[in-house]
């Protein structure tokens, strides 16, 4: 969310400097992504503060944390512009109220499409939005200020000026405002007229009903759509817009009416006239009443705040408190959050509000108390670390490689044939071909790393890696195994013998078995220099020279010895 500094000051009589605000916001409210002379960008990634997706919401917050004064008042139901006006109904049919609990259309006539004035253009550009024309800009300005997305349809493009809100029929299509053709599936919610699709609910309008130079009458839409359904559609179409983001963070009926009222007033300032209004559906917005106890604040924050502090902090943030002792008879309240704070549901949420107003940075450290937990077996972790230390002691360097087989590794192992790929765990949505398959052995990635080092003119590669590999299991979740792999390629002929020597030096509870490795690995190893490792009668690994053909595939012309086995206690 880009907060325009100038615009914010139209809403707040800010009593501190911009720099001070930039310092304070992360301490009290939310992290900051970027600051420029024009805007402060809040880091909203993953955040749950729907209210901060509107400038008015940001204004309330800034007032609470800075002791500044608010410069606007929210309009009451009785003050809305449509009250006591006789207006025509606009034809609206919402087929599924669960998907569109509130749907309003206002008809505004007598508009003239022109470029917006500089003030509007600047407000939008500070907010990261491009100005289009005065009529379209109103919808974006209102969205940024109130957090409620709006959409304006050119009324002359809407068949019979009748809107039908319904789910898509299989195969339906629309060219959206960005010029792309979108195909729909039957869970997508569409805005249509009796003959055609006009827009994707809450995501983007269609080209066919876009406001153009000749537009004089618009149908202005303000709605609340089901966020889950909308998110599904947006994700599938890869279309996350400024509007859709606000829908799935959550909207309120109160804000919707304020925004609609604000937009109509702006259209009237452009010479337009409200001639029709339809409001379909309703949304019961129950006030939440959340119990809050002083002892819980003390125990969770670890600071003995007094009652007055709690009341002051919450009141500043617009929460209403009524004194009510806790079940244990301790001081407490029943707290009602402001209607726009959809993120506050439980006592812990309130405690966070109190704690941040107090200032997390003012909480002093307190050592952990209480009894220590029972000892649990840590032998496995110690074994892993001790083994690493021993290997380093024997002159090996620890390497960590990616858990994927790169295309080079796949090709070099001869794994590109479908038959072999089926042995590998596959990623459904890989970042690239290089990260599509998970490794089933460690040594191929060590060999790939060895090649890179040998090319850098390093003569002696003696490395190990400890990490997990992933084994396909028919009809079950893939198995993860901790493995150790060692690789030596130092230009000598006796790399395997060196590894054998190192292996013996480790004095592990693992036996050498004069048995050739089986399975898909066997063609990858030297025909005579390969043996198995076993533990408790089970084969758990291999010591081998890599077949020179395979090493050559990797680009390595020297002898390569490897060891790899499953680490088990």
């Amino acid at each position: 969310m880009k907060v325009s500094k100038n615009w914010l000051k139209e809403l707040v009589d800010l009593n501190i400097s911009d720099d001070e605000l930039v310092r304070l916001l992360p301490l009290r409210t939310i992290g900051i992504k970027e600051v420029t002379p024009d805007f402060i960008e809040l880091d909203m990634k993953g955040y749950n503060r729907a209210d901060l997706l509107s400038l008015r919401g940001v204004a309330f917050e800034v007032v609470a944390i800075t002791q500044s004064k608010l410069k606007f008042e929210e309009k009451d139901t009785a003050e809305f512009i449509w009250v006591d006006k006789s207006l025509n109904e606009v034809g609206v049919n919402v087929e599924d109220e669960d998907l569109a609990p509130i749907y309003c259309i206002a008809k505004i006539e007598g508009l003239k499409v022109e470029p917006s004035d500089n003030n509007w253009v600047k407000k939008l550009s500070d907010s990261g939005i491009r100005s289009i024309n005065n009529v379209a800009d109103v919808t974006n300005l209102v969205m940024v200020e109130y957090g409620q997305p709006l959409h304006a349809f050119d009324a002359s493009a809407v068949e019979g000026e009748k809107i039908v809100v319904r789910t898509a029929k299989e195969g339906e299509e629309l060219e959206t405002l960005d010029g792309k053709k979108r195909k729909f599936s039957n869970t997508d919610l569409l805005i249509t007229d009796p003959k055609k699709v006009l827009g994707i609910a809450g995501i983007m309008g269609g080209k066919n009903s876009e406001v153009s130079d000749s537009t004089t009458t618009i149908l202005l839409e303000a709605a609340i759509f089901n966020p889950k359904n909308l998110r599904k559609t947006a994700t599938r179409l890869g279309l996350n817009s400024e509007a859709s983001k606000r829908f799935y963070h959550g909207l309120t009926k109160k804000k919707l009416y304020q925004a609609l009222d604000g937009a109509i007033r702006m259209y009237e300032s452009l010479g337009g006239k409200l001639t029709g209004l339809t409001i379909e559906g309703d949304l019961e917005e129950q006030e939440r009443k959340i119990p809050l106890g002083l002892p819980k604040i003390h125990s969770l924050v670890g600071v003995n705040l007094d009652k007055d502090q709690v009341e002051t902090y919450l009141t500043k943030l617009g929460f209403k408190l009524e004194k009510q002792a806790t079940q244990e008879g301790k001081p407490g309240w029943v707290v009602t959050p402001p209607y726009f704070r959809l993120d506050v549901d439980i006592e812990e949420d309130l405690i966070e509000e109190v704690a941040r107003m107090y200032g997390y940075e003012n909480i002093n450290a307190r050592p952990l108390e209480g009894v220590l937990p029972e000892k649990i077996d840590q032998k496995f972790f110690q074994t892993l670390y001790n083994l690493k230390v021993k290997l380093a002691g024997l002159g090996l360097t620890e390497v960590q490689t990616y858990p994927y087989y790169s295309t080079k590794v796949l090709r070099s192992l001869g794994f590109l044939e479908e038959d072999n790929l089926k042995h590998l765990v596959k990623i459904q949505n890989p970042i690239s071909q290089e990260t599509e398959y998970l490794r089933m052995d460690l040594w191929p990635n060590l060999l790939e790393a060895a090649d890179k080092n040998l090319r850098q003119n390093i003569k002696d590669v003696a490395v190990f890696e400890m990490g997990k590999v992933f084994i396909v299991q028919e009809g079950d979740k893939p198995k993860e195994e901790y493995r150790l792999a060692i690789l030596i390629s130092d230009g000598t002929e006796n790399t395997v013998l060196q590894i054998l020597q190192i292996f013996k030096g480790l004095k592990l509870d693992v036996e050498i078995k004069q048995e050739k490795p089986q399975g898909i690995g066997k063609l990858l190893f030297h025909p005579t220099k390969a043996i198995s490792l076993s533990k408790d009668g089970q084969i758990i690994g291999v010591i081998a020279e890599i077949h020179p053909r395979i090493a050559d595939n990797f680009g390595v012309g020297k002898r390569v010895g490897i060891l790899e086995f499953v680490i088990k206690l």
Partner: protein
Amino acid sequence: MQEKISEIKVKFLKEIEDAGSLKKIDEIFLELFGKNGVITELPKHFKGVSKEELKEVGPLFNKTKQELEEKIRVKRQEVKEESYKEIEKESFDINAKVELPKRSGHLHPLTQFEQQIVELFRSIGFQQFESPEIDDEYNNFEALNIPEGHPARDMWDTLYIEGKGERKEGNLLLRTHTTNFQNRAMKKFKPPIRLVNIGRCFRYENLDARHEHTFDQFDLIYIDKEVSMANLQYLSEYLLKQVFGPEIKVRMRPKYYPFVEPGAGVDGLCLFCKGKGCKVCGGIGWLELAGAGMVHPFVLKMAGLDPYKYSGLAWGFGPARMVMLQNQIEDIRLLMSGDLKFLQKF
């Protein structure tokens, strides 16, 4: 000209055929395609050739060049395959003694750092616990108060495992955080619980000097009666002072994670500018080093713990970032590069 090309072709095809070693093949290759090689030089003589004739000569030359290249490739393979037959005769005496060359070994910087952390926390009663790298949506998301369709899922760009059918625990995925141990750990042990989990995590992320798609994470939980944010501040100071020296300042600030409430970001005063603001800290004066918070009551309930009786804290960070700050490593990708020149500095 055509004749000359044909002559070259016949002569060298035979020479390649007769070559018996890779060395000989390399010599022929140079003779043909080297700086002054026969094929390299040939087009210089096309000047005198008429336009008409060039229509024939050009394609013939290209064809011959390709044929020779292909022949060399095939022959090289043949010679190699021949030598591979030889290795079948090599004997392998597993009891043969060899002298191990003197080498100096090195532990990976992440291993060294993580062990230091594990030991630091062990000394205040935290033990290690491990969770799987391939996990399900239940443990990675749902049990942590991140239901399907929750906007917070955008914080973790997830890699999914292909086609393992419908499962009660949701789709399989590569864990996006080591926090996936919380539900398991809280079900397995009764409070007081002090556990750490350290290991690899995976995200759908494009690589650059500051972003990895495969990275380590450190996570801890502490569940007991009367656990507080003051304890969080203590743990943050405890760790960061040990890692970066006693003079480091540590502060918490509000941050949202769905599995904690209240949630906190943990900053350390920038080590490089001491708070003045510099390139490393993006002019802020503080570096974000960890994420933390009080375990969300929903998360406690999902693990069968009574949030009225117990509270807990969760605290975690990415070791790579700290290792990079400690050692002034500029590019995160070096850690997974396998580059020995880099790794042998540690």
